[in-house]
């Protein structure tokens, strides 16, 4: 599905972060050994929603191109958060290394149109790339 308006993109972001939080919550319960790490991701997901919504509601203005700032195709950013009972730990971790592409694309599309919103997207992308992915890869290496 194509998303063009800022409102749609913010709702989609919220959905992504909520799905991600649900997924890590489940991982924290299934793999108690790394519960702290997974729960920190859950916390971060919630913080990301606040950060993006705050940026959007803070700058949305009739002078900005709110209805024309994006061209996001949601099919390009699938986030599979269901984990089968049989899934082993490695598989779960692989699944957990989720996408940063959505945030980078959304930031790029709106960079000169939506003021603080692209900056919020970039911050989240950076956190995921620099912190979350590294932490998950490190867990994977330990597993191997």
């Amino acid at each position, binding site marked *: *599905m194509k*998303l*063009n*308006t*800022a*409102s*749609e993109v913010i*709702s989609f972001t919220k959905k992504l972060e909520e799905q991600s939080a649900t997924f890590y919550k489940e991982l924290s319960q299934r793999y108690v050994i790394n519960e702290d790490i997974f729960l920190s991701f859950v916390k971060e997901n919630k913080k990301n929603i606040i950060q993006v919504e705050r940026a959007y*509601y*803070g*700058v*949305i*203005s*009739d*002078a*900005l*191109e*709110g*209805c*024309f*700032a994006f061209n996001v195709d949601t099919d390009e950013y699938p986030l599979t958060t269901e984990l089968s009972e049989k899934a082993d730990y490695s598989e779960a971790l692989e699944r957990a290394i989720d996408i940063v592409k959505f945030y980078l694309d959304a930031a790029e599309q709106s960079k*000169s*149109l939506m003021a603080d919103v692209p900056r919020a997207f970039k911050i989240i992308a950076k956190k995921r790339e620099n912190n979350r992915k590294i932490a998950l890869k490190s867990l994977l290496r330990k597993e191997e």
Partner: protein
Amino acid sequence: MAILEEPIKEVEKLKNYINGEWVESKSDEILDIVNPATQKVISKVPMSTADEVNEAITAAKEAYPEWRETTPLARVRCLFRLKELLEENFEQLSRVQTQEHGKTIDESRGETRRGIEMVEVATGIPSLMMGYNLEDIATGIDEYVIYQPLGAFGHIAPFNFPFMVPLWFSPFAMATGNTFVVKPSPRDPISQVKIAELVDEAGIPPGVYNVVHGGAEAASILIEHQDIKGITFVGSTKVGKDIYKKCGEVGKRVIAQTSAKNFMVVMPDADMAGTIPALMTSFFGNSGQRCLSGANLVIVGKDDSFYNKVLDAFVDTASKIRVGYGLDESIQMGPMQSIDGKERALGYIEKGIAEGGKLLLDGRKADIIGDYPDTCFVGPTIFSDIKPEMTIAREEIFGPVASVMRAKDLNEAIEIANRSNFGNANAIFTASGKSAREFQYRIETGNIGINIGIVAPMAFFPFSGMKDSFFGVLHGQGKDVIRFFTESKVVIQRWL
């Protein structure tokens, strides 16, 4: 995409807010407020009687002495509380605007944010209202200026920004120690009722802020009443000019922000990736119903390929605009606010065809997303081959109709724009600082955009305007509006 929940679920008859009380009007004349997208009646508004309007003015007059003596700090504490309440109710207030006006939810949220920013700036009054002084203008003699409020002010609101426009004035009026009477547009008055509910909750004393519903008759009473010290108005040039004249005759202050015909000038070096979305917002945002909307697109240069490139991109992007009910988050353009507005736009489209314009995109039969009646919908409409002297290039349409014309160079583009009777908001899209400066220097308009399609000044800057787009001396917002709501006194003192 799901439709966001509508906050107004039951049809109620709106009440006036006078002297801190919700008062039912005794008028028999009641109008329906219709959601322009769904055509459902969502509320009813009375055309208040003359006595009721007078009561609101009397309440404002009587509240003035005590409010004036309330310290600026105490006054702005009320506004801080109001700001918090507006934030708490942000989403509901935004959805109400979409329900009663038809604009998209992004546009409504943008309007809410802009309105709140006015309250935020007005909370700076303890600093902003300060006077100035000089010691020893002669030996032992000092001179200083103080700013004082004047009394009760009236505001006559337009339909196109039912939440924001009254807030261009009311927070500044109240912060400076004046009292206020708002007459919302009878087409979409619910937002002002919601604001009054929050004003009440914020503890702003009775009579300081009043809302009285009505039409032209109520407006006339406000304009002519001797206890109203000044009028702020946003609407058509015809009415604004008349208000200016009437207020001038009796020495009242007036800010009348009126009609527009805005030119968007695209230079050959413009960045198209940023320009096209900006043009979409400018021409088709709020369905073209704003005094800052782009109306005439002037593509500069002798190069046919550049002209065709801009025109093709403009038409192609506009043709994909999703038109429908603004509470659907995917919608990029809502309906016109009223049937009258739609008929007016359709009339101009007919004129454009009759005068020889080439209709490249026809919005007369809008392609509506969702199952909604087409009663108020007009799709994006684009004419090319428009000459500056044609009716649709000169008169305000107030709808999603774009007229495309060519100019051989910047000089000609500026000359075309300056021939307009209006001077509200013109913009240039260019990568050249030299072109931008020349445009800024020579263009006859109050608000200038450089790579910006909607030139909406922030709350701390004046909302300028000139020629037939503004009548008055001081503008709304910024330092201008603070000066408007205050009188200066000069004191020269010597102690013997």
